[in-house]
């Protein structure tokens, strides 16, 4: 996902949740196959994706379309800035039940419009090979419907989520704010 960045072993372990020993073994295999390159800086060894590897485009594509999905979507939403208060993927992509052709269900809370969010993520559909279905709630409407126990929102809020912008705590704050929605 970030071929221009190099990573220290412990960094990768933290991000992937893999045990250090296993990780070191896997990485040295990948380095031998020239899929990653390694550099030494002092006594630290860094690993980096090797864009010169003939397999690089295919591997990058595989990652983008599967485990890297959230990162690609986040990058697309970042330009909307603070007009997105929280954004997450729900449905099969979040619960890891996604099939090959599963859509990406996206929920956004913020002052951005549906048209803006859809334009931001629209171009990704082809790259990801998946349809992206955004639903956009302004904070006031989100708060009101969450408090009314709106069926769709209640279901989504209870289910597994993959956060792109903000986190569970931000979302709870948006759903429970005490002051009137007009003040938002």
């Amino acid at each position, binding site marked *: 996902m970030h071929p221009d960045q190099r990573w220290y072993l412990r960094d990768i372990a933290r991000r992937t949740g893999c045990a250090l020993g296993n990780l070191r073994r896997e990485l040295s295999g990948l380095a031998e196959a020239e899929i990653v390159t390694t550099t030494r800086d002092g006594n630290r060894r860094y690993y980096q994706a090797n864009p010169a590897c003939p397999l690089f485009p295919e591997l990058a594509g595989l990652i983008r379309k599967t485990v890297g999905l959230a990162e690609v979507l986040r990058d697309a939403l970042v330009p909307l800035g603070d007009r997105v208060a929280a954004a997450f993927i729900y*449905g099969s992509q979040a619960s890891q039940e996604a099939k090959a052709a599963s*859509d990406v*269900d996206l*929920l956004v809370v913020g002052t951005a*419009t*549906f*048209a803006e969010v*859809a*334009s931001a993520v*629209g171009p990704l559909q082809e790259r990801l090979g998946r*349809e992206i*279905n955004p*639903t*956009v*709630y*302004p904070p006031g*409407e*989100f708060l009101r419907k969450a408090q009314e126990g*709106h*069926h*769709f*929102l209640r279901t989504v809020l209870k289910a597994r989520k993959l956060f792109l912008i903000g986190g569970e705590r931000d979302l709870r704050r948006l759903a429970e704010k005490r002051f009137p929605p007009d003040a938002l």
Partner: protein
Amino acid sequence: MTLEDWLRSGFLRTHCSSRQEIVELFAISDRDLANCRTTGLDAEWRMAIAYNAALQAATAALAAEGYRPARGESHHWRVIQSLAHTVGADGDTVEQFDRFRKKRNLSAYERSGAVSDQEAEEMRSLAERLREAVGQWIQTAHPELAPGNAKA
């Protein structure tokens, strides 16, 4: 691609419209533009009604040009795309309309309730814009079909 190309590819059929037909399509569009403001209706329904208002307006424009979508073709998609060739709608407008088509399909078949009030409002304002554009366009492009014009 032009509408003529679409006809040759079998996506469209020729169609002979009449002022009566245009009057009726506009009437449905206007009815739905009014109905989509009904308070107390869920956002999902209001969006679907506004979507229908826009679709009827687009259908009227296509009919005035002498076409209708071929049977079995992706009917709605075709009508939406035709707006670029009838009233000269820009790419953003057509794309936005088409996104609401997808949203409406999803809400009908899969994910019920995933429509916000704001999205219903966005669809309504798009539908109003399109209804207005088709009304004006027909006056100049097909005055003989325009509702309210004296019979040619």
